[in-house]
């Protein structure tokens, strides 16, 4: 097995904490954070699991929004990850029970290469890149986050989906030992999300393994999560353990919880209100005022064609 247990890693391979803290500070400054980053380094964050280990990657020149990234501290302490509790502070506090290594992903359904893959096997061929995306939560708040990952489509192609694969389904690992709130029934576990095949193959769809140049902290969905920046955040499923190619449109967890409020597409759309929250505007974390929400979260030029001819009020 390619996966290293913590005991197999020789001390020389581990970057000293001070070094990667410096590195994080540097990354944040590079990401345009300025003074905020320097101050952040002093406060420090509890990052569970392998989160915080530096990654090798190339910054993408094409996919980086020119807006101030949300501080690392906020990105890693304000999370919706119901497997660790329903308030936003719970994941950072409780996600230490998640063990992101060893990890395997089951691939099944309409493809030529189904099977159980070690995470390392999945990640190996993909060079990592950093992309700075807008992130918009359905609750009306947003962030700007430098993710590290690789195009989802590149990975999916390796499993050789067949012509019957019209949709791809993702599931979060179900293991109440690691995800304590799965013992409760707040949602119907395991968390399930899906994309239409053309959405999944779109170059913007990203498989994420890190943020701010470092390994993804547990509370952000370690070891591997989805990031679909033109959709509301809940579509970007965390801690993925299963990928399934299917012919029929799947019913996602939130659709099952409340089909009147959550649709399959869940594209960011200021003109289609959620019954609970107006989607016309949003609060960018760190700002007091409100910003107008952008159609497809500002990615309309790239993705609008995927939905041409569709009534987005009906297919919300």
């Amino acid at each position: 097995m390619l996966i290293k247990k913590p005991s197999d890693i020789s001390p020389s391979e581990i970057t000293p904490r001070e070094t990667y803290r410096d590195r994080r500070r540097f990354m944040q400054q590079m990401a345009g954070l300025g003074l905020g980053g320097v101050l952040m380094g002093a406060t420090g964050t509890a990052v569970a699991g392998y989160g915080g280990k530096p990654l090798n990657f190339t910054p993408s020149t094409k996919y980086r929004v020119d807006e101030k990234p949300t501080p690392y501290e906020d990105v890693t302490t304000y999370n919706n990850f119901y497997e660790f509790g329903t308030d936003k502070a719970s994941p950072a506090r409780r996600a230490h029970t998640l063990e992101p290594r060893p990890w395997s992903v089951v691939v099944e359904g309409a493809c030529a290469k189904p099977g159980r893959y070690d995470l390392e096997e999945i990640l190996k061929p993909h060079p990592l890149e950093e992309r700075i995306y807008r992130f918009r939560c359905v609750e009306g708040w947003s962030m700007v986050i430098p993710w590290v990952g690789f195009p989802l489509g590149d990975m999916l192609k390796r499993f050789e989906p067949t012509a019957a694969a019209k949709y791809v389904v993702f599931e979060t690992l179900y293991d109440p030992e690691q995800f304590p709130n799965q013992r409760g029934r707040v949602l119907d576990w395991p968390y399930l999300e899906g994309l239409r095949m053309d959405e999944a193959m779109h170059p913007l769809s990203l498989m994420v393994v890190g943020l701010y140049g470092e390994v993804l902290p547990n509370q952000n969905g370690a070891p591997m999560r989805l990031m679909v920046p033109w959709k509301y955040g809940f579509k970007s499923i965390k801690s993925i353990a299963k990928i399934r190619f299917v012919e029929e449109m799947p019913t996602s967890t939130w659709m099952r919880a409340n089909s009147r409020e959550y649709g399959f597409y869940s594209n960011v759309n200021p003109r289609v209100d959620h019954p609970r929250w107006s989607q016309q505007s949003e609060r960018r974390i760190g700002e007091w005022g409100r910003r107008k929400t952008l159609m497809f979260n500002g990615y309309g030029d790239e993705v609008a064609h995927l939905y041409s001819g569709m009534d987005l009020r009906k297919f919300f």
Partner: protein
Amino acid sequence: MNPRGVRYLKLILFVLSLTPALLLLEGALSDALGTNPVETLVRDTGQWTLRFLLITLLISPLRQLTGQSQLLRLRRMLGLFAFFYALLHLSLYIGLDKFLYWDEILNDILDRPFITIGMLAFVLLVPLAITSTDAMMRRLGRNWVKLHKLVYVIAVAGVVHFYMLVKADVTEPVIYGLILAVLLMFRLPAIKRWRPFRA
């Protein structure tokens, strides 16, 4: 309890009741309300409104159970604190959360049932606050009692408002609802006659 004791108790309760607001203000000024301070402010003032409504509704049953009629003299202040927190909650929602985006606020009130109900609860609270003075009590006489029965409707609306706004985990609003149900049960004629500690 003698009148002087009541006055001291009132003073202590006044300071205690104001404390959550002062702590929130201090938190806001020192940037200690977490990643989304506006959300914290709106949510916490809403929760304190509900708590003060329940505490206000607790006074009558408490008097009934203990036979301490002086307790009634605390009720007006507690009720006014419920109004105070409701006013803060609404102002923060309009001024900070929605940042005076009036078209959005209007849409919220018209289209989002949980906001409609919350708004209704606030509107009903206003006449109760206005008629809370001694002079108003005298002027309205028997009608004052009838008018102030609105607090039951307001409390139910408040809990429903909370229940409808949570996304998935309804534990907290259900707890508020259960407490309210017990408090409302004390208003049933059969239970009202029950005087365990009275000679």
